Each structure stands twice: as C-alpha cells, then as structure tokens.
C-alpha cells in the first residue's frame, strides 16, 4: 500500500502525512486522493508537493463566548489567505485596478479607490482587510530595497 511521500522538511508535517494510506500507485492518484480528503495542495516549480493542514491542538480549549472574543482579534485562516489569492490573480488585478488602492477581503477585491484616504472610508466596516496599492507599471521582483 502506498503512502504519501513528500519532500516536506518539517518533521511534524512528515509525521502527519506519511502514515496516510492512499492506495495510490502514481503521483496523479496521490493528488486525487488529497482532493478526496479535502487537503489543499500545490506543486512548486521544483516539483515539491506542498499541502496545507490543520492539526487539532486542544478540543474545547475555550468556551464559545471566549472563542468569539479571540476570533474577533485574530484573522481566520480564510483571511490569512488573501495575500495568496492576490498573488495568484495579480496579473488580472493589475489590468483592472492598476494605479489604485484596493482592499482584499474573503478572496475578493471588496473596495478600490484612487487614494488611500478614499479607500479607508470604504472599509470601516470590514474586519481586518488586506490593503495594498496596485502599481500600474511593471513590478520589480529582485531588490535590495533601496529606492
């Protein structure tokens, strides 16, 4: 029986996914098995399989009313993926929103404005949006940060 094997460097991650029996005989079958299990995955340009996982650390950790307080001050996993969503859609977003400030929330552009003050007015009711400026010019990706 095949198990999932990856180049994962984290011992914790490896210990979690290695024992999962998939019955898969090929990489394609392993990827299908991950889809079946609801595991988010992608393959890097170097051929490394990356998966996203959550591990239960403590059930009933806090009462629900306290959980609501904690959740109000901490971004949920969906919100923390906004940067990922932005990067994957950056080319299209640059075409549509180039030269504008945007607010990303829940994997959507929820507001856009020509200036940051104008955008701030539009986002007062949003919980921790990701705000950024979309350049209209080409973006330089190699840098030593000086202007």
């Amino acid at each position: 029986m095949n198990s999932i094997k990856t180049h994962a460097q984290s011992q914790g991650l490896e210990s979690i996914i290695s024992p999962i029996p998939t019955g898969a005989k090929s990489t394609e079958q392993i990827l299908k098995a991950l889809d079946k299990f609801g595991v988010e995955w992608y393959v890097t340009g170097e051929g490394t399989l990356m998966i996203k996982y959550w591990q239960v650390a403590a059930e009933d950790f806090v009462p629900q009313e306290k959980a609501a307080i904690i959740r109000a001050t901490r971004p949920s996993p969906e919100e923390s993926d906004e940067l990922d969503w932005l990067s994957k859609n950056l080319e299209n977003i640059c075409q549509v929103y180039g030269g504008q400030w945007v607010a990303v929330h829940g994997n959507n552009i929820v507001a856009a404005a020509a200036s940051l003050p104008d955008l701030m007015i539009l986002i007062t009711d949003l919980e921790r949006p990701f705000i950024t400026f979309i350049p209209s010019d080409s973006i330089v990706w190699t840098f030593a940060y000086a202007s």
Partner: protein
Amino acid sequence: MPAKNFEHVFRFFQFQDPSGQSIWLPLVEVTLITSQNTPVLLSLLFDTGATVTTLRAELYPMLGLQSWDQGQRVSVATAGTVAVVDAYQYTFTLEIFDKTVDCPINLMQMPPNPLYHGLLGRDTIFNKFGFGFWESTHELFVTTFP
C-alpha cells in the same frame, strides 16, 4: 552549542513572476491599528538588515498623518545605493505573532510592490521574539519566548 526551540514555523510566501520564475519571500503578516481604530492586515518583508521596521511613505493616511514627512527625521543607509536617504520616524502599535508591540516605525520612499508594505526590522520587535531563518527550506521559525 545551545539548542534553540521554536513553537511556530512559517513558510516563505511563494510567488511566480510574469516570466514563470518562482520567487520566495519571507513575508510576515502584521495587524496595524489605523488612526480610525480599524485593524488592517499588512505584509512585511522579514529583514534582519533593517534597523527599524519601515513602511512605504504612501501609507501615511492610514496612520492619521497629514504627510509622510512630519515625524522625526532620520537618515537611513540602504542596501541598494551608496546614498543615504531620509526617513521619518513615528511610534505605532503592531500586532505580530500574537503579541501587541509599540515600536518605532519609519516611513520611507520605497518602490511599489502589491504583496508587501515594507520591512519588518529589528528595533523593539526582534527583542520580543526569537527567529530561525532556513533559506533552503523556505521556513521562518519563531518563538515568542526568546
């Protein structure tokens, strides 16, 4: 050699540039409490070479400032040029790795990039944490108990 323990590990952010080349960025998400008391997410490039956490000058309205250059003027040597540039320093509150930190923040003119807003620098913030940087595995290890 003493062993160091870390409770958190964050993978670098992977991005494919228009040419298809993979770029790994050690980005750290922080929450900034704006002048309107609205928390917003910012993404900062982890940078041990930055003395002070530095944000793009264009973000000044979010901080309740009338202009980017009304704070304490400081001269900053940058890695990409021999020239020293001006930055303007303020103190603001960031939430980072489950901690709330009042720290100096420089505003400085920087090239635009939609995926990060500036540099996560050492002053004050690095004292609150311990870091392990693993380029080969694209991982940033963090302890909140340095």
